[in-house]
């Protein structure tokens, strides 16, 4: 009477891979993404040509990168509202310090990275060590950054970015056949995306998700929760710095850079089926969420939707998509008023082998 131990059902590798890609409620986002692109292509077949697509990627890259950072923080059970301000701050810092001098580009970029790391570190430590809810911590950081940068520059950005600084966001490998320019932004995006996927498969990634799922259990398993979360905040801030470099490079410095990006990034991540509160969802889906948000704006444009009405449509789609994903999640499990009971969404093995 030996009980069957863990069995690996046939086809489960495929299912596991698919599941890992899509995560819990993230099927919706991939469907939505495909749908939006289909409509865009139908409306404007020229959009499917490589140069247009690459232009899209160039524009979308910063948000996708921010979404990766936001994902890391959200999946660990926290929230980072400071990234928009940080992007703005970094661009303003870059313009003020580089002030048009090409030789200053590299040192200033290094300084920005250091600054990003410090902001992330403060967010992380205040949240983990001082136990301030991260929504408040990062709201505070947002205010502090917003004020401090303007205090420093007297209200509006000063200085100018160098051409070299603008390369990553604007330039690329030129004169390629068919596609023309291969944007650095795409390469950076791919690198960040790949690194994120690898990171999530490393011990750190698993610790991060476990921490978001149940931080007590994680701590009791030897996870240094404060460190894991602080690192997530630091990564988020570093990625915001990268996004800042790309945005500054893409469009130069304006006073509004970064405004509202935090909500865009959070929206993107949640649209990707990542659950606010932590522990669920994949980084690939979060990136898809960001692409979806950007694609949505493109669609609005292709539809010549007046720009004032766009927020309304955006709001409706976000609510509908998240609501639909939530419905999918609950629909597959039985209704139950049972307290704290796990709600299985797949049939479970009967607990005794004898019965079947």
């Amino acid at each position, binding site marked *: 009477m030996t009980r069957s131990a863990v069995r690996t059902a046939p086809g489960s590798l495929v299912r596991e891979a698919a599941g890992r890609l899509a995560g819990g409620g993230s099927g919706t986002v991939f469907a939505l993404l495909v749908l939006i692109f289909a409509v865009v292509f139908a409306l404007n077949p020229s959009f499917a040509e490589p140069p247009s697509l690459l*232009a899209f990627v160039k524009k979308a890259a*910063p948000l996708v990168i921010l979404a990766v950072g936001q994902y890391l923080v959200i999946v660990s059970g926290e929230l980072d509202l400071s990234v928009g301000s940080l992007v703005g701050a970094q661009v303003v810092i870059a313009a003020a310090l580089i002030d048009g001098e090409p030789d200053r580009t590299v040192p200033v970029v290094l300084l920005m990275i250091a600054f990003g790391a410090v902001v992330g570190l403060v967010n992380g430590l205040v949240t983990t060590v001082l136990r301030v809810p991260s929504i408040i911590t990062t709201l505070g950081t947002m205010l502090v950054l917003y004020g401090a940068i303007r205090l420093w520059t007297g209200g509006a950005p000063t200085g100018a970015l160098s051409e070299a600084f603008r390369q990553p966001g604007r330039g690329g490998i030129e004169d390629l056949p068919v596609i023309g320019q291969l944007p650095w932004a795409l390469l950076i995006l791919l690198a960040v995306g790949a690194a994120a996927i690898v990171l999530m498969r490393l011990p750190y990634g698993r610790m991060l998700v476990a921490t978001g799922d149940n931080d007590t259990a994680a701590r009791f398993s030897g996870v240094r929760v404060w460190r894991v979360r602080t690192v997530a905040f630091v990564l988020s801030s570093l990625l915001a710095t990268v996004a800042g470099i790309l945005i500054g490079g893409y*469009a130069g410095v304006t006073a509004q*850079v970064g405004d509202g990006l935090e909500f865009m990034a959070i929206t993107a991540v949640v649209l990707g089926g990542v659950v606010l509160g932590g522990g669920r969802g994949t980084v690939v889906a979060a990136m898809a969420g960001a692409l979806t948000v950007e694609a949505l704006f493109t669609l609005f444009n292709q539809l010549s939707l007046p*720009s004032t009405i766009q927020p309304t449509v955006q709001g409706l789609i976000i609510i509908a998509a998240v609501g639909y994903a939530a419905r999918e999640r609950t629909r597959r499990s039985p209704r139950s008023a049972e307290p704290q009971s796990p709600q299985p969404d797949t049939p479970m093995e009967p607990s005794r082998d004898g019965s079947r």
Partner: protein
Amino acid sequence: TTDVPDDDDAAAAGPAPDQEWFDPEEFERQLAQREITPEGPEDQPWLQAIEPEMVDTGEYRLEGEEAEAPTVCFSNASVSNPWRVTGWITMQQQVEVLQDSGEIGEFRVSDAADDDNQQISDIQAFVDAGDCAAIIISPSTTATLTPAVEAACESGAPVIVFDRGVDTDCAVTFIHPIGGYAFGADAAEFLVEELEPGSTVLALRILPGVDVLEHRWAAAQQVFGESDLEILGHEFTEGDGAQIKDLVTQYLQRGDVDGIWMDAGDGAVAALEAFEDSGRPYPVISGEDELSFMRKWQEEDITAIAPVYSNFQWRTPVLAATRILNGEEVPEEWVLPQEPVTAADLDDYLERNADMPSLHYAKFGGEDLPGFPEAWQDR
């Protein structure tokens, strides 16, 4: 889609949206004012006035001890964009001069950070404090600040309003350049002139609902309406370079864009870059007298114009305050000159501002102030 009040109400409240901001009389007046030579010292445009109707300010004249270093209070809407930052520096430099000469004592400032309610409180606080010899107000939005400005007027201190307006004429003087209609028309007329009939124009706007900006667009619509240009659309960008560049790029993916009309010029460079990056020839474009745009214009030899919303107007209110407190008469509506920068004087303005940062405004009018140029450079 939303739970809204019945639409009839909104519709009944005003004319069709596009007409809402269009006042034909004012439009005509502003267009005409462009041609009128202003009165006043030629080298000090901030003291010039177009067709001024002077008012007597004897009642505000300070005597004896009171006249020594009076406290002037300034309620600022915000310094949240480069135009306002430039102007605010200029104003402070002007105040320093007046403080040194003893014409102003304390210069008390509150900044509402674009929050109307905050500004109402700020003005109220000045009134309650009771020791403001004069109150200068740069209103955040027109209609909403009206009651507060009225309250300030009732306090007895002379009130000076500048830049954006209010719906009351209780202020001793309202200082402003010719206005949004003139700005928008300057830009639109230039496009009409430079572009072949049938050309396409994209309009880029910052945000809806701000009168100075709405007037610019209303005027442009008027001008374009009588032209043979095809307006591809008008888009709100919140002044964000990334959005501007993305929008323009997308329009270019769909077809040609021959001209760009903007209601504020600080994002003009981003729009131009979209053309560069798509490998398209530069459009005919209207920007603003902001240096990054003007430099680009010069470097690339673009067909462009920079309408101006005279930044030097920030000097005028404090000067007006000292005049009023001296009992000297001032124009009731102090209309300052407003002349676009054209290809003809582009080089001249760029040379004069060669050491200024890129988000500086060419017609800031502070060259003669003691702090020049450091104060504008080290912001």
